């Protein structure tokens, strides 16, 4: 098991290196001129030359790549053109907000997805099943940005139940930064007003983001549960006189979880994608919004840095999923 994990980690480093190379060359071999984008159209030529030299853009592409690689090995991701701060610092600053959002959305996805899936499988072919299958399909087809706007329209503008943007209202000071997660930080500081407000701000973006996940998890839970419920040992358990709830929740569920853990990993990738859009709609100060702004401004150090972080998170999730496989199904042993 240990050697398997080590092998996977080594492979991950290789993939990240590849990701970095691909994004580096994509973001440099471009028709669009980042310096012109930065300075505007009317900048004097001397200034343009100066800026080019400052960002090493006057050197051949190959040299630029080696310079970047060398600095990367020392943990230096460069300086963001738009914020003027080191990219690594920026990423640390923006990442916790996304982590908080994605975690909340994952919890919602898995919890409601599994419940819906179980109901659907146990009531297979009946009204509840059709309803939950239909809602899963609707969830998969719903564009995240449209759902976000509709929820904003309903719960913020029309009903006024939930706040519309950001993590805290503008008049409330942020709790001192410990973990960077605003809910946790406000608890540590004993600021229950901030905690309550932060939770309220979290609800809408997290629900929007979890929509796809709930749909995906419930679909796979349903089909996996249906397979397991047909197995002999389920009949045996029933014949022993166990209660149906016990049979479903204890005997069937654990074995049905294997594909669910895979889909949860895939869903996490979709969450990272979704966070890009959700954060734009809800003005959430996270990684997705940072990346989008970097893309729009052709801020290439930030582009490479944020895509690498996203790829790293994605790869780590897949690793965790594969390891949880081994835990859930002892028949699988990695060599």
């Amino acid at each position, binding site marked *: 098991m240990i050697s398997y994990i080590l092998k996977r980690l080594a492979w991950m480093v290789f993939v990240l290196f590849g*990701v970095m190379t691909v994004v580096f060359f994509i973001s440099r071999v471009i028709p669009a001129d980042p310096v012109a984008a930065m300075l505007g159209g009317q900048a004097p030529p001397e200034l343009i030359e100066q800026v080019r030299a400052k960002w090493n853009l006057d050197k051949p592409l190959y040299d630029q790549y080696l310079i970047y690689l060398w600095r990367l090995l020392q943990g230096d991701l460069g300086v963001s053109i738009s914020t003027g701060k080191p990219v690594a610092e920026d990423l640390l600053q923006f990442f916790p907000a996304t982590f908080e959002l994605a975690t909340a959305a994952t919890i919602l996805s898995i919890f409601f997805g599994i419940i819906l899936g179980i109901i659907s499988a146990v009531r297979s072919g009946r009204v509840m099943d059709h309803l939950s299958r239909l809602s899963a399909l609707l969830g998969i087809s719903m564009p995240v*940005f449209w759902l976000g*706007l509709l929820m904003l329209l309903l719960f913020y*503008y029309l009903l006024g139940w939930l706040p519309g943007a950001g993590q805290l209202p503008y008049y409330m000071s942020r709790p001192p930064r410990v973990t960077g997660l605003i809910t946790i930080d406000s608890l540590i500081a004993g600021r229950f007003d901030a905690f309550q407000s932060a939770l309220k701000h979290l609800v809408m973006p997290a629900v929007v983001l979890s929509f796809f996940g709930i749909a995906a998890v419930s679909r796979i839970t349903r089909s996996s549960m249906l397979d397991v419920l047909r197995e002999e040992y389920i009949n045996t358990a029933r014949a022993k006189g166990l209660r149906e709830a016990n049979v479903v929740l204890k005997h069937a569920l654990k074995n049905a979880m294997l594909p669910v853990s895979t889909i949860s990993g895939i869903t996490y990738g979709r969450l990272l*994608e979704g966070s890009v*859009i959700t954060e734009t709609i809800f003005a959430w100060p996270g990684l997705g919004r940072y990346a989008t702004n970097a893309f729009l401004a052709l801020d290439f150090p930030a582009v490479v840095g944020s895509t690498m972080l996203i*790829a790293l998170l994605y790869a780590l999730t897949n690793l965790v999923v594969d390891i949880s496989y081994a835990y859930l199904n002892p028949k699988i042993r990695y060599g």
Partner: protein
Amino acid sequence: MWRALRRNPLSLTGLAIISALVLAAIVAPYLSPYDPLATQPLRKLEGLSPAHPLGTDQLGRDILSRLLYGARISLRIAVIVALLAGSTGTLIGILCGYFGGRIDNLLMRVTDIFMAFPQLILAMAISSALGPSLENVVIAISLTEWTFFARLARSRAIAIREENYVEAARAMGAGRWRILSRHVLPLSLSPVIVQATLEMGGIIRTAASLGFLGLGAQPPTPEWGVMVTAGRNYLPGQWWVSTFPGLAIFITVLGFNLLGDGIRDILDPRLRG
């Protein structure tokens, strides 16, 4: 196939949605009451009325007309990407699968790297680098999609390579190119086509997401994602500006998903979800 499809009401609904959409896209010039780009400064942000059944946007353009032309754009993107990524991916996959060896290994590592990103993020990176435009959206999404087709075609080619009739063809003296074009390619094609149908909805959603983020089609193009973004500033008062384009995306993606599900169920009943 058709008979099996007819028994599944949800897939039929999907088929009906897609057919209606294709029809609307074809006859858009005859159906649209207005020019999708014509601005009317005196009729900005008008609500629903007989003259403008879905209202007008911030420049006084008719939203219904823009939606109809938008259907052309979305469908064209989906079809071109499916063709482009499908054919390139299939070709690479078949060559890798059939010949194997070092090139296969190298290309599969390349697909690993492409698959290490969430798709939308990669498309955003490519689109921003090339400069956001409709053509570059097609290129960006194709670059993220080809890997799926390559993997699929490769696994088919590996399976076909070992079949007896390929062995027989080889024994009869058929060259490798003849085997590839006469045996491997035609037989790898059907799963690729199914996969292409399944991907259509996702392609349309990705294109709309890029438009929404400002990294896709640019205004004044009547692309649905761009239209949703434009309407954001007019919530809640003029809700129709972004609600209707969003609804169009939702229904289209739903249509493709319903149809794709049906086709997959028919071809592989084990996956029925």
